[in-house]
């Protein structure tokens, strides 16, 4: 999962998805935070566990790996079983390699007038003609019908709406259907 620009809720939604898989579907899930500096260590870092030969953390049923090593992430994707949610943060040439290895790719953007340009630029620069657009789930932060229609006309694929979640660590049943649809 990645976002077209910072502060669009990539980590927030990645956490919601991982927690939903672990706490509602009761499946194994590994959350990888691929960042130079972890923003989650203080929250999830209390209970240290080993995941394969790596050090990870367990919090509310989700296993966390906090790393900035792309090769390590690629290896985890190849070896580990179950769901793996990768919070890519920023998409660049090196993190794109990880995105390529993911079965489901989610890109979060916003179609608010002042953010629309970023979304188009991101797609043109990083995605368009590089990936099969059908294999990527494009999501918008706030529901915008015109934006959805425009997106479909321009790129020929659907723009999904992110579910409204209050707290990714305390999910509500009303969020389940939307989250399930994402899976």
């Amino acid at each position, binding site marked *: 999962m990645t976002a077209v620009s910072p502060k669009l809720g990539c980590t927030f939604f990645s956490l919601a998805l991982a927690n939903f898989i672990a*706490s*509602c579907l009761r499946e194994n899930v590994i959350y990888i935070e691929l960042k130079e500096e972890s923003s989650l260590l203080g929250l999830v870092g209390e209970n240290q566990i080993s995941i394969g030969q790596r050090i990870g953390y367990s919090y509310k*049923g989700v296993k966390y790996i906090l790393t900035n090593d792309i090769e390590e992430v690629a290896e985890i994707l190849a070896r580990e079983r179950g769901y793996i949610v990768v919070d890519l943060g920023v998409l660049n040439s090196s993190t794109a390699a990880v995105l390529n290895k993911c079965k489901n790719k989610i890109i979060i953007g916003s179609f608010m007038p002042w953010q629309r340009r970023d979304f188009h630029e991101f797609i043109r620069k990083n995605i368009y003609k590089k990936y099969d657009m059908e294999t990527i789930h494009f999501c918008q932060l706030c529901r915008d019908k015109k934006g959805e229609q425009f997106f479909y006309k321009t790129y020929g694929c659907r723009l999904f709406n992110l579910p409204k979640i209050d707290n990714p660590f305390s*999910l509500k*049943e009303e969020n389940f259907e939307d989250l*399930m649809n994402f899976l």
Partner: protein
Amino acid sequence: MININLDDRYEVIKTLQQSAATAVVLVRHKKIGALRILKAISKASPDAHSILSEAHLLQGFNSTLLPTIYEVEEDDEVYYLIEEYIDGISLREYLLSKVITKDELIKFAIEICSIVELLHKAEKEPILYLDMKPDHLIIQQGRIRLIDFGISVEKSKSRQIKPHGTPNWAAPEQLRGDFLDERCDIYAVGKVIDFMRSNSYAKDDFKLAYLIEKATAENVEFRTKSISLLKEQLITLQGSMGNEKLRKKHLEKRIAVVGANTSVGTTHIAISLCKFFNKRKIDTYYQDIRENTVNHIWKSMKGARLEEGVLYHDSFRGIMNYGDAIEKHRPPVGLRVIDCGKEAMDILLSVDIIIYVISGRPWQQVMIYPPWIKEKNVYIINNFSNKITSIKKAKELGKRVYMYPLIKNQVDLSKEEERVFTAIFKNEKDYIK
């Protein structure tokens, strides 16, 4: 013989125990007239420190469950400890004179656990009693009190002590001199409960037998984890007995469905039973204690509705097994059908009815049945079977066996299934209206 030099304050009434270096004497305080126990030990004795240790351990407690320490004195040759005299008879003497009821047994067992819990949860650090036996439990006005803390230690000092304790009562690791923790007292408490059981009308109680078995497991890793847990289990047992007497309403009851083996149809029968009651307007909730059956049903079943942790689908109601990242919900009020799978002894302690599922398939036969199978509240269902095998099973087990019909439609409750449940629950008048 030890020489007691406290004549100015105490009058000796009776010598209770005496050896070359120690004495336990019943004394009367000359000024206030109260009876007290005086323990004396020669300073030359290698165990001289035990009196000081006992006083030190008990000084912080302010509980009627433990004896009060009044004074610690010494002269040139002897240490003295003056403590409360607990007037009563020992549990051993008490049990020699009468056979106790299950009610009384559980009441005593809970009281013993409360005393040990007090020691294990001591403010400074846990205290290991290490000498639990019927002779050290005194019944005073119908209540149990614990005496003799001579070999008790603070947990952090338990590594320094040598192998000790009373054989047949002390935990094996204590007699071997291995690492000790609170679980060694749990073992001894389990032994005392077992001793009470052998002198009671509850000899055949399978729930109690299971609690004792867990508490007295030779391997410390398999033993009941804490005295509080044992106490909680005993309270549950006491509660279920109370409920039998008060005739608990069906909405508070719990039915466990237990399989004799894996894949004998436990989950299907439990789900069908839940539907059966709901069709009869009795609010019933299915719960799986081992797996996430209801969560899996939600994933695959269209038209199912989730509300406050419960999955609703036609006449099925299932409690979702959520993890920590889901908002918490209050458990629903209603009859509970608990799918226990194959092994579920802990849950069986707190259920009202057990449906035991066996299989007619030759490769799913079991050789040994659980001891509780003959209990009145246990009903046996023979799945994947025919009339002949069910009759044979009934003869073998010495009680009625209900033949479960072969199911063609996995989703809907069939008339034949309803007939089986009606036959079972006609014996339980609260359930069938």
